[in-house]
């Protein structure tokens, strides 16, 4: 199993390399550059800016410089592009020396922030929201699906599936403002916008006030708005899968053995029924993360979703690369985790 995981992670590096190459090619193929303005900049200023950010070099050299900055840790006297005193990326070693690694570059739009700054401050917020939304989706979807399957063709089934259809049909763009209107403006129970957690975070993304009401009062509505849509998918899938498993022979054997219904359901039926559900959790998490842009805009949440989109409209090349590579990493890791959970759920599945 260990060797399997390592092999997968090595594949991930190859995948990331290919993605970065394609992204680099596409971002430079699209017309328009980062310094195009409505009020045209003087040509000398544009030349200056391009030199500052190495945009006047040939493409292969730009790409090579980028990879070098990201992958190769080195001791350098080269002053960072802006005076960064980040503890992790450009570590000052006394005198004029810096240890530099994992440097994803500057942001063309914001002079005082680098891509690492942006990711360090905003990614945790998106992660928190994403994980909470997944938790909501599972917390609503799983019980609904299980109940509907166990009590098939009863009121629970129809009600559950009806709610599921509703959840998947109403997009976040509609549900978000409605929730804001009801709970934020009319009843004033919850704040309409904002996020309760601030940097610095524990373990990179855990908010310090996770167990306070201040965090939850901001997180409830957005997590719910995103989670209901995905809970519908989980509910339907769980129901279908469980229904199929319940009619299998080994379930009948288990009942014949005299096991209680509860044990049959939880120990035998569910473990098999959940395999398809777990399969989609990986891509679902990636979908949640990438789709957060709309939620973050509606609820005013300072997450990474906005940068995903605005970096492209601004032609902010380092941020584009940074966000795309980030999502690629998440997708690959999510799939690796899914495969590992697979093996745990189904002993027939083993990797060498």
């Amino acid at each position, binding site marked *: 199993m260990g060797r399997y995981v390592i092999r997968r992670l090595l594949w991930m590096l190859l995948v990331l390399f290919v993605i970065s190459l394609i992204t680099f090619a596409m971002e430079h193929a699209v017309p328009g550059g980062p310094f195009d*303005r409505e009020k045209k900049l003087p040509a000398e200023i544009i030349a200056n800016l391009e030199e*500052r950010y190495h945009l006047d070099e040939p493409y292969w050299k730009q790409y090579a410089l980028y990879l070098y900055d990201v992958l190769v840790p080195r001791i350098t006297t080269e002053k960072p592009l*802006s*005076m960064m005193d980040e503890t992790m990326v450009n570590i000052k070693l006394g005198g004029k020396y810096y240890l530099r690694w994992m440097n994803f570059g500057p942001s063309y739009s914001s002079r*005082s922030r680098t891509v690492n700054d942006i990711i360090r401050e*905003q990614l945790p917020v998106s992660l928190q929201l994403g994980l909470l939304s997944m938790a909501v989706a599972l917390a609503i979807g799983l019980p609904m699906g299980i109940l509907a399957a166990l009590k098939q063709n009863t009121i629970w089934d129809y009600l559950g599936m009806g709610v599921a259809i509703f959840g998947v049909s109403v997009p976040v763009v509609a549900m978000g403002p409605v929730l804001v209107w009801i709970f934020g403006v009319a009843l004033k129970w919850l704040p309409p916008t904002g996020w309760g957690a*601030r940097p610095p975070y524990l373990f990179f993304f855990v908010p310090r006030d996770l167990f306070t009401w201040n965090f939850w009062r901001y997180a409830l509505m957005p997590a719910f708005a995103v989670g209901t849509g995905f809970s519908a998918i989980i509910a339907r899938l769980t129901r279908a899968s469980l229904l199929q498993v319940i009619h299998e022979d080994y379930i009948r054997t288990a009942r014949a053995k005299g096991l209680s219904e509860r044990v049959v359901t939880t120990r035998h039926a569910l473990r098999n029924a959940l395999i398809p559900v777990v399969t989609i959790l990986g891509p679902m998490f990636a979908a949640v993360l990438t789709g957060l842009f709309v939620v973050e805009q*509606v609820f*005013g949440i*300072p997450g990474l979703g906005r940068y995903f989109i605005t970096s492209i409209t601004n032609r902010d090349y380092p941020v584009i690369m940074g966000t795309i590579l980030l999502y690629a990493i998440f997708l690959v890791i999510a799939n690796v985790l899914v495969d590992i959970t697979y093996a745990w759920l189904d002993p027939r599945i083993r990797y060498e």
Partner: protein
Amino acid sequence: MLSKKWSVLVAALLVGTTLLTACGGAPQVVTVEVTKVVAGETVVEVVTATPPPPPKEMRPNVLHLNFGPGDVPTIDPALSTDTSSVQVVDDITVGLTRLNEVSLLLEPGMAESWTVSDDGLTYTFKVRQGIPWVRWNGSAVEEVLDCEGNVRYVTANDFEYGIKRTGNPGTASDYAYVLGFAIKGFNELNGAAGWSDLTDEEKQALVDGVAVKALDASTLEVTFTTPAVYNLNIIGLWVAHAQPKWIIEGDDCTEARGDRWTEPGFNQSYGPFVLKEWIHDSSLTVVKNTLWPGIESSPVPQIDEIQWSMLDASPAFAEYEAGNLDSTGVPIADIDRVKADPVLSQELTIAPSGCTYYYGFNTSKPPMDNVHMRRALSHALDRQGLVDNVTKGGQEPAQWFCRPGMAGCPTMESHPDAGIKSDAEAAKAELKAYMDDMGFTSVDQIPEIVLMYNTSEGHKRIAEAIAEMWKETLGIQVTVTNQEWKVYLVTLQEDSPQVWRLGWCLDYPDANNWTREVMAIGGHEETATQWRNETFTALLEQAAVEADPVTRQDMYAQAETILCYEDAAIIPIYWYTMVNVTKPYVNRTYSQHGHESHEKWSLNLELE
């Protein structure tokens, strides 16, 4: 008979309980009989006691505003280009001159007075003394100290450094070019080719060549290129505010912060407000600078703290309705509801805003190369109908390009017939003139016309409405298309379509910034319009230095008529307004020049 101790105790209890009952309700005067023993004799006294009134509940002296979606890109004066950056810079620093936000009249800022040389080119500014550089130290506003422990005050050297830093190609400032219009030697520095290949001596020579010199701590001498009327405007712009050299480049006792000097914790400023907190993408907070002495054009602020959030238009409006924002813009979709609502309609204000919405022509592409065709399209556009039914924000139909209210710009009162008007009959007559010119007999023979705008829901609705108007009045069907913003900018510069949409907002409130910088030969949109009129450009160059305001305004009115009617190089559509709702407890002004003067605002602190 009660003992002395007992009597005092009982009396105290009586007074105490009576006072307690008064706590719950309105303060009442209570009378109490107190038995005291004085000089061995028991005496009964009547005491009246008025309990103090309970304190009134007050709202915090904090103003909650909203910038709009996305982080503030920077608050470095040299690098600021967009409205939120400039707003913060204008709140935390003050320029040599300051523009009154309501009257648009020039007022002294950090320069308390100035003298002009005989040729009108060299100004000697007297910089105010005694205004300290300050920073937020985590709990209070404190003065910045230099290496000897003395307070750092704002000097003329700080202004010289600020202007030269803005012009330095190494800073790569987007907005430096505006100073290049006015200050001598500035363009040589800012536009120096091959800057990084120059030696240090050559670079220093170019920097020294900028005609801005601090003769001593309180005197700044600036030489301009022309005796233009707007020179004092330009020298007061945010890109020419004082900047703190020691924190940017470092000195003996301060670590250089470089591009990070604007981050909270490092930022230093001197104006009416101080940067307190900046949580990127979430909020930015400034507090009142308790060490700001107040000057006439920028008094001591009455508000303790301003907090800006960074929300999109609709969530911001939801926050306003929930009571968490004190003023915000009204999203277009909500305008009708706000106008009809009894409470919100009272809080609604529609005020002029410094931008013009227009369509330009590529005058080299047929059929736009014929002036009759251009005039026909311009006349056929029903501006009032567009404003009433599509944009709904109380915008003003525009007859010319320059926004009335800017210095030198004609107004509807002074020049009601300048520029061009919506006129369906005139449109048809012009179309006929075009068809006669070309020998066409039917509108189908007219070459295809493409109307392009940058992708946005709002621009789409306007474009479709206008296409419909042209179809109805003239029978011409135009092809409406759109492109993403950056791609659109490239298209405009390389091969603009026959009709293209743009807006222009002021950099400084003077007609020169509009008609000349945008439309004249060498202006921003010369390539997009392919229109070059020497008489027009010459007229504008004259108007730039014309001292008599009435003559100047006439000259600009004449120029606008050339631009919009005689040559019809553009179609002016409407002048922007801002549609705002503001809570009734906010006492505010509405700025005409793009950023508010928050130090003049105040809040009614008592809760109703």
